[in-house]
Every structure is written in C-alpha cells, then in structure tokens.
C-alpha cells in the first residue's frame, strides 16, 4: 500500500498498511493493521512517528512522493514501541534530522532499543510548544497511555491531534478516514483496541480526557498511529473512550468456558438459560473457538463474568489458565464473578477459578458449582438457579 494521502493541506499520511499481520503480541488482529506516520510541510519539514521495521521501504517510498527525505528537518517520536519505531534507525539515516523530539522517557526508551547516543534528541515536556514555521506543535505527555514514553502532538493551526496509539484501531484498509468506512465495524475495531491495550489504564484515560477538556483546544481531526483517521465527528471517539474508561456495564453476562467431554458446556448452557429467562443478555464463549482478545472485548460492558472449566490433572484446562493470565493483566473492574465445572475424581478447577475471580476483586456468587462427570437434571437445575441468582443481582445493580 503505497499511496500518500494529504489529510490536510500540507499534511500527508506517509505510513504503511500491514494487510497480513494476524497476531499482535497475543491480540488477534483479524483484519491486519496500519502504521501511520504523518509528514507536515512547513519551514521545518516535520515527520511524526514511523512504521514497523519491515515496512520502512513503503514509508520511504511514500515520503519520496512528497519530498526528498533528506529535506526533512524534524522527527517527532510520540511512542517508541517497535511497530512505530522499528524503522527509525533507517529513517534517521535517510533523513538526517536536525532534531528528534521525544519525551524524557521516550529518549530513554529509544536509547534502550537502538543504543544510539549520537542521535540529536530534544526532550520536550507536557505543554511545551515549538514553531515549525506557519504551524505550532504542542506536546502533551500521556504517560502509560500506554507506555511511559507516550505523548500526543497537537497542531493548533490545523486543529489536528496526532494521538499516537490512543484512538487507534487495528484494521487494514485502503481508505484513510472514518467517514469512508462502515462505522459500526470501525467502532468494533476501536473497542477491541481499547479493551486489549488501554483497559488497565482506564483511570488515566479519565484524567487525560478531563485535562484535554480543560485545555479547551479545538480538534477537528484526530490522527492516530493505527487505523482510520477521525475526520467526521472526531470527538465521537473521545466520547467512546470516556464511556469505556468508566467501565460501566450493561445487563449482560459473559460465560467463558472450556470443556473436555461437553459436561462443562452443558452447565454453561444451563447457567445461560437462567440468565436469559430473567431478561439478561448473554454471550457464551468457548475458549476452543473464541480468542482471548475477543473475550476481553465482550467483557468490557458485561456485568458478570462466569468462568467454567473441568478439572484436568488437578487443575484447570490450559486455555482457561491463558485466559485468566491475560484477564488479570487487563484489570477489569466492577464485575460479578462465578465459577463452575465438571470433574472426574478430584475437582480442583472450580476452586482455582473462584480464587482468581476473587483476586480480581469480583463479587463472587458462592463457592462455585462443581459436578461430577456428566451432570444430571438436579445438577443442571443448580446451574439454572445460579443463572437466576446472578440475573437478579445484575438487575439490582444495573439500571435499564
């Protein structure tokens, strides 16, 4: 994908589209991604961010369509993760920038990645402005959103926010703007991105949104480093982040399970029956079919997280252990939890699941349901009742 797009007069998208990436350190990106970088033509020609290492030729090719890379004066590094900086050694070699702007943590991260103390680093602080000619860049540090080095760059003359990883989506497209694609699919990619990358930092997202509101800046375009640029109604994604970071829930329950011989699956369906007949929206996710990153995305607005695993070799099934490791790191809050599972002779899994839910500070419903081998009618009735009990609690705590 080598097509430069002028996103504003004199501001060009010169990034790369990765149509074939499917795994992003454990997050499934089923429709690829893009690595966006932006070139601003001014007295000081300025390049914002770079691309993943294998795409450096795509990026340089794009830059050449606009200008000889050697004529670029400034490089701004908003975020050092290798999907945006992997090509930086070659890009710096090609453009020989006068200055490389980054946060203090950004400089440290660049040194720790590329071990080049000869680059012309220029550390900038939050609120600092630099003039590049007709335009002014204001930097805003966004520490831990989602790395310590992360920052935004705002160009006031363009009302353009270059937002690094925030507000991005993993979605490879030939279109560059939100108004050129299906909006529900776009929001589905955006919420998946939030749930898998930013969820643990939701408190900081709340603070940042308040800070940006206080700055009272005009934003008519938000250009993230992945996916589509928000041109039409750009503040819709800020409002969505406000909502997701509050972690408010719907009257919805998520039943996540794995099963050996369908006994735990029978229990999952019985719990679902109890919830559905009480008017709760339910999602059943079998870890043999559903990827951990899709499960997390469904969890973001679910009030109850109900986990099921049979016991295998005195523990839970390995896919559930994987799910719990991932879930703990992403720190969901405000949830109800419950555990269930079938066992043969020892039955440790349910206790382990309940313990994990407790560690994640979820409000537990009993010790969990542990049924031996294949559930009978009476066993399944307990499951339906658990579903009803959780449904009643959800209705009590979540307004319609």
């Amino acid at each position, binding site marked *: 994908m080598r097509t430069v797009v002028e996103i504003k007069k004199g501001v060009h998208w010169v990034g790369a589209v990765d149509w074939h990436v499917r795994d992003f350190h454990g997050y499934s990106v089923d429709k690829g991604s893009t690595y966006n970088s932006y070139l601003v033509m001014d007295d000081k020609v300025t390049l914002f961010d770079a691309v993943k290492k294998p795409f450096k030729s795509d990026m340089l090719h794009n830059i050449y369509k606009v200008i000889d890379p050697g004529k670029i004066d400034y490089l701004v590094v908003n975020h050092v993760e290798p999907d945006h900086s992997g090509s930086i050694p070659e890009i710096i070699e090609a453009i020989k920038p006068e200055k490389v702007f980054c946060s203090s*943590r950004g400089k440290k991260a660049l040194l720790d990645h590329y071990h080049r103390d000869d680059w012309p680093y220029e550390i900038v602080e939050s609120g600092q402005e630099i003039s590049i000619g007709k335009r002014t860049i204001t930097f805003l*540090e966004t*520490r*831990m959103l989602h790395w*310590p080095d992360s920052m935004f760059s705002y160009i006031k003359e363009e009302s353009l926010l270059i937002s690094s990883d925030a507000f991005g989506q993993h979605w490879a497209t030939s279109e560059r703007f939100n108004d050129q694609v299906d909006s529900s699919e776009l929001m589905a990619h955006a919420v998946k991105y939030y749930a898998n990358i930013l969820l643990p930092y939701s*408190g*900081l997202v709340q603070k940042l949104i308040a800070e940006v509101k206080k700055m009272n800046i005009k934003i008519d375009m938000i250009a993230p480093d992945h996916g589509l640029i928000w041109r039409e109604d750009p503040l819709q994604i800020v409002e969505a982040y406000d909502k997701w970071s509050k972690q408010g829930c719907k009257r919805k329950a998520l039943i996540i399970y794995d099963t050996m011989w369908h006994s735990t699956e029978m229990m999952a369906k019985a719990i679902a029956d109890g919830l559905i007949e009480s008017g709760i929206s339910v999602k059943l996710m079998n870890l043999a079919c559903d990827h951990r990153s899709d499960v997390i995305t469904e969890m973001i607005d679910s009030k109850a997280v109900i986990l099921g695993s049979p016991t295998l070799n005195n523990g839970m099934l390995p896919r559930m252990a994987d799910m719990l490791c991932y879930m703990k790191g992403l720190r969901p809050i405000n949830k109800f939890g419950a555990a269930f599972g079938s066992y043969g002779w020892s039955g440790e899994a349910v206790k382990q699941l309940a313990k994990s839910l407790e560690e994640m500070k979820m409000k537990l419903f009993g010790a969990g349901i542990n049924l031996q081998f294949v559930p009978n009618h009476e066993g399944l009735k307990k499951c339906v009742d658990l579903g009803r009990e959780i449904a009643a609690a959800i209705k009590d705590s979540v307004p319609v």
Partner: protein
Amino acid sequence: MEKYVCQVCGYVYDPAVGDPDNGVNPGTSFADLPADWVCPVCGADKDSFSPE
C-alpha cells in the same frame, strides 16, 4: 521497611534501594519520600502506590 507498588505501571519502590537517579538515598522509607516524588517509571504520584 515495607515495599510499595505503583498501581499504574507495577514498579516496586524498595526502601533498601531508594531511587538514586532522582536523589533518593537507599534506606529512605516510602513515607519519607518527598510529597512531590513520582514513580520513576511512569510518573504517577505517591497516592498511586500501595504496600506490596
């Protein structure tokens, strides 16, 4: 002396080590850190720390 964990990024403040890069000598308890001390990894303030 008790160690404290940054709830934002997971950094652990160990009084035995201090934070020499930011002028905090080894042996300084968490309580004795200056009020404007911030997490050396992510910049979170003291309120963001909990005992380990």
